[in-house]
């Protein structure tokens, strides 16, 4: 079994219009820029994108939005150093936003991957983000019921991958990536290094291969933060 695919284009070829796509990363850290740009080249539209943020500058998710391909963002913090692309479209009503507290976003994705359709959290109780959601009291304290979140595809960035899809990440670039790996029907990973089977110590696997469908090597991945400091624009 070898989950490696030869190109970024092949890795994202079957993402259809209207798909829900989780994209790893927190800001630029852990953002799979090359996979996102491959998705731009591929052409799918009317996408729902799940990410902590809503793009920065004119690369990555911001570029996907700028190309008019995103119908809806599900995120916790649609703000960045340069959020203009999202902001303008949101204020014009050209893109929808589901705002989710960050911990709830993470837990909803984990729940999606773990077969937990709903859970209760104290987060957002009494706020406008809890409006319309069931509230239940446990041990004298009120909690809000939240639902799982799943996706058709996940686009992720890893440091090392082996052919079975076992993954490691690099520092804080881990963030949402291991969660999203579990919650998508098809999980697509760009890895800086593809190592032989056995090249990752079994103790140090962060994402076991069962959660991964495709791996593509991107040996020297771009860092969104650096692209934006260089005022890069894609395409």
């Amino acid at each position, binding site marked *: *079994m070898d989950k490696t695919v030869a190109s970024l284009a092949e890795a994202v070829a079957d993402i259809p219009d209207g798909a829900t796509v989780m994209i790893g990363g927190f800001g630029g850290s852990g953002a799979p820029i090359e996979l996102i740009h491959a998705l731009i080249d591929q052409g799918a539209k009317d996408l729902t994108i799940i990410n902590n943020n809503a793009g920065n500058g004119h690369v990555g998710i911001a570029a996907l939005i700028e190309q008019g391909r995103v119908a809806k963002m599900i995120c916790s913090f649609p703000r960045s150093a340069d959020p203009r692309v999202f902001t303008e479209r949101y204020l014009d009503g050209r893109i929808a936003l589901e705002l989710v507290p960050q911990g709830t976003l993470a837990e909803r994705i*984990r729940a*999606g*991957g*773990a*077969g*937990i359709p709903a859970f209760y959290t104290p987060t957002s109780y009494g706020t406008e983000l809890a409006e319309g959601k069931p509230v239940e009291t446990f041990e004298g304290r009120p909690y809000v019921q939240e639902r799982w979140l799943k996706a058709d595809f996940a686009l992720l960035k890893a440091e090392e991958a*082996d052919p*079975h899809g*076992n993954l490691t990440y690099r520092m804080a670039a881990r963030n949402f990536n291991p969660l999203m790996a*579990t*919650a998508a029907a098809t999980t697509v990973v760009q890895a800086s290094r593809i190592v*032989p*089977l*056995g*090249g*990752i110590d*079994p*103790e140090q*696997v962060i994402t*076991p*291969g*069962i*959660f991964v469908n495709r791996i593509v090597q991107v040996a020297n991945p771009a860092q969104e933060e650096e692209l934006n400091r260089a005022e890069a624009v894609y395409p």
Partner: protein
Amino acid sequence: MSIDLTDIQLSNAQIAWRAAQDIEDGAYVNLGIGFPEMVARFQPKGHEAIFHTENGVLDFGRAPEPGQEDWDCINAGKKAITTRPGTAFFHHADSFAMVRGGHLDVAILGAYQVAQTGDLANWSTGKGGVPAVGGAMDLVHGAKRVAVLTDHVTKKGQPKLVDKCTLPLTGVGCVTRVYTSLAVIDVEDGVFVLREKVPGISLSDLQSLTGGELKEASKVGDLICPEDL
């Protein structure tokens, strides 16, 4: 019910062999404690399944030689296993996220009873004693396909495939295929559908050993396994 099955029924190893033939190359598989563990031995040539064990190991290797056991490296049956290239360790919540989240392709379990609705009873004889459930209730509602390995009848000759389970349930409507000592039977729309049977038994005898309706598939194959198992 006084049919002599001695010469026609499959051995446990043969039942496990038959189940193994249906496992696709690269499938993620959980094998129940005991008899189902034998399935791992019989993967078709060129096929390599990846095995999961509830206690936090994926893609593990074979049992070590006696005397070479490391008791920190065990499976859900608390038998020693080994690592191999590709093995991953993880904690119990991640392990059952794999199970409950639908990431396993197949779970293969033993059974006391399977109902024609797909209900499974395999954890309690209901007779008192100490109840113990382990991971069975999670597995039956998690894996994409839940298969059962079982003798076709109990030691006393009673059907284990029944219209309705009388023993405490493990799960509702969860079993999709049963590999018995006499047949391969699917559970479809609330009836047992016979796919294959051992050549030595007639359809009417097989029906008489089966609780619940046994519907013939459009083509019923011969269930033939290697004899030297």
